[in-house]
């Protein structure tokens, strides 16, 4: 990391980390079509409030504008993209080719994922690919960057200086393996990590302690993932229906305890309190705020969390 090896990509996100600031990223889901204006509106909402924004790759397996296309539009419009890439839809030939294409379009951060199973999306009858998993993808793209070789061993023409990221879910099972899986991702090539959204602080802190014991916080920039809850209904829904997410009863009770019209504000307050608490957690190097279909709240959250203005790094 910053101490033992130098700049990998020169992306804004990487520079913010290396300058020692707490980084801020959010999510920017592309439209379910080629509606560029809609995307541009979202970009305007978050511009200046985040160091980079994740551009999802057909998240939950619902067909959307490609993450490469949308990432290029973000870059052109002044928000640095973190292009997500899933292995569900592309084999190693397509993945490497897309990496080169993305780099050529000016994209400098990429988050490597396996992706949600197509069962959850709008084409459950599609054939999936899964030629490799997210860890193998990380290893492959790192080899391209650091050794100049594609998966087959053939040389790459021209360098690819990208900053690679991965996701980690401390809340899935088996718990003791979650930190090992994160370690595998970091060893394979992840320069930064964004966690699944945190609600169970006790479990998260336990996870971070295990990560620190393994020295992982010094090998990658770990960002805490947060999703503000809009209502008690949303909290209950996520708790019940999203595998790998549990929302503690205390949070559900707290939301249920305020009238409906004030639940969104309460959700934001919970998120802000989490940020405050996590600023103190050793090894946390930034926040990844996933405001699901709620991008307009990003500026407010970033400001109220004391994370505004975003640092200008050279």
């Amino acid at each position, binding site marked *: 990391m910053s101490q033992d090896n130098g700049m990998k990509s020169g992306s804004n996100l990487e520079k913010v980390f290396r300058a020692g600031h707490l980084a801020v990223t959010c999510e920017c889901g592309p439209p379910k079509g080629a509606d560029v204006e809609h995307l541009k509106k979202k970009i305007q909402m978050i511009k200046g409030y985040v160091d980079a924004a994740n551009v999802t790759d057909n998240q939950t397996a619902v067909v959307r504008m490609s993450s490469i296309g949308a990432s290029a539009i973000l870059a052109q419009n002044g928000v640095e993209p973190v292009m997500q890439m899933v292995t569900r839809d592309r084999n190693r030939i397509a993945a490497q080719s897309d990496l080169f294409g993305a780099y050529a379009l000016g994209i400098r951060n990429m988050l490597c994922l396996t992706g949600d199973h197509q069962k959850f999306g709008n084409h459950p009858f599609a054939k999936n690919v899964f030629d490799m998993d997210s860890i193998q993808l990380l290893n492959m793209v790192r080899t391209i960057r650091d050794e100049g070789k594609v998966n087959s061993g053939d040389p790459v023409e021209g360098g690819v200086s990208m900053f690679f990221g991965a996701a980690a879910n401390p809340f899935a*099972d*088996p718990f003791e393996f979650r930190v090992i899986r994160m370690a*595998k991702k970091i060893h394979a090539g992840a320069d930064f990590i964004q966690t699944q959204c945190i609600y169970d602080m006790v479990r998260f802190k336990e996870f971070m302690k295990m990560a620190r014991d393994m020295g992982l916080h010094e090998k990658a920039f770990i960002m805490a993932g947060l999703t503000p809850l809009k209502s008690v209904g949303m909290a209950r829904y996520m708790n019940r229906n999203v595998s*790998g997410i549990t929302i503690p009863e205390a949070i559900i009770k707290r939301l249920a305890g305020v009238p409906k019209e004030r639940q969104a504000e309460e959700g934001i307050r919970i998120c802000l309190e989490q940020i405050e608490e996590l600023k103190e957690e050793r090894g946390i190097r930034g926040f990844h705020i996933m405001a699901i279909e709620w991008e307009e709240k990003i500026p407010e959250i970033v400001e109220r969390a004391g994370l505004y203005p975003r640092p200008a790094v050279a």
Partner: protein
Amino acid sequence: MIVADPKPFQQIRGFLEDYRKILVLGCGTCVTVCLAGGEAQAELLASGLRISFSKDGKEATVLEDTVQRQCDEEFVLPVLERVKREGIDAVVTLACGVGVNFLSDRIGAIPVFPGVNTTFYGGNVEPGLWSEMCAGCGDCITHLTGGICPIARCSKHLLNGPCGGSEKGMCEVDPQNTECVWQLIYERMKLLGRLHEMQNLIPTKDWRPAMDGGVRRSVREHIFRLQYKSGAGA
């Protein structure tokens, strides 16, 4: 074993409108064991067809037979002779897809219709339940995973541990019925005292020995050559 499910009766019935002498052919191996295409199912389908034909006023003869294996000439040749001898004009096979192909490759101008949907290689895990366990990837890696297959049994074929959707031992793709295979592998590796191996990166797989290298053949040189030389094979 190869597991299959019976095709819907109406679909099979729909194949047969133009035929008058139909052979329903069961297979005595895998599909017998999984109760999809053995002698009993052949009988059942044949009598169902007879009832349906007579109800519809369609004149047709439905014969039934079951052979030990439809994937071996030894058992298939007598069927082919019978088809010719008796003037059978269509065959519904209850063998797996291998049987459908094996017959079609040899039977000449007689149509062969599938009577089952071939699903996977699996085991009988409890009475009436079969589960997928191998995907025939051609380069078994289960020595790395405690003898449990992440290719066939993980919905995303992950090779480096459970995804973020593994919860309480179940797979996010089917949390009611399907265990997360990586939870099973984790527990098994622990039991075997090999948990530390799960830190190792399993590299990208060579899928050539799987279907991705093209159509596969399996050769036992000593027998294959012998037959070839003597002119009996090839």
